């Protein structure tokens, strides 16, 4: 299935992209995290501290993904 992944702040600077579409044959966010680690080794460290959102809602590592989901990689937030 195809999953769109969005990058922000530090993750955007490291990857050099706003987002990308990935062919994903895993099940959940945890699997996607491994795929991102493989595809973008420079993200490895940030992935440890980042959260994920699926379709604009925070998600857990166990959250199951489906075709067309938009997943955002959320590095530690710094508003305020």
């Amino acid at each position: 299935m195809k999953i769109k992944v969005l990058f922000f702040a530090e993750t955007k600077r490291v990857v050099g992209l706003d987002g990308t579409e990935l062919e994903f044959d895993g099940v959940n966010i945890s699997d996607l995290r491994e795929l991102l680690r493989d595809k973008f080794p420079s993200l490895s460290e940030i992935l440890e501290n980042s959260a994920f959102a699926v379709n604009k809602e925070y998600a857990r590592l166990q959250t199951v993904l489906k075709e067309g989901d938009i997943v955002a990689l959320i590095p530690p937030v710094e508003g305020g």
Partner: protein
Amino acid sequence: MISLVKEPLNIDLLIQSLKNDNAGSIVIFLGEPRKSVEDGPVVSINYSAYKEMALKELAKIEEKALKKDGIINVIIAHRVSEIPLKEISFFVGVSSMHREEGFQACSFIVDEVKKKVPIWKEIKYDRDRSC
């Protein structure tokens, strides 16, 4: 009311919007860039956001705050642009029946925004003065 805006915040207007005949208290929090941090003197802070999600998270925080006893109105406004020193980047205002619940709600909102809303900052340093 919640908002993410590029332009400077009109603090007087925001405070005016909080006024209410039933309110005995208006508590305001203003966030602004610090002049210097560990890595040196600061020129500005550039805030960015995952805007659609940030608005959803802000709306959830607003809703939770409005459900607290005695809270009459809530305004949360955050700028998402480059903020020079002396300008306000973040405004939280709470009008309430009494001051105590206003202070508590304001503190709750600031903490929640800092924990949950996908907003990030990139600090621009004054390299001429940092050496």
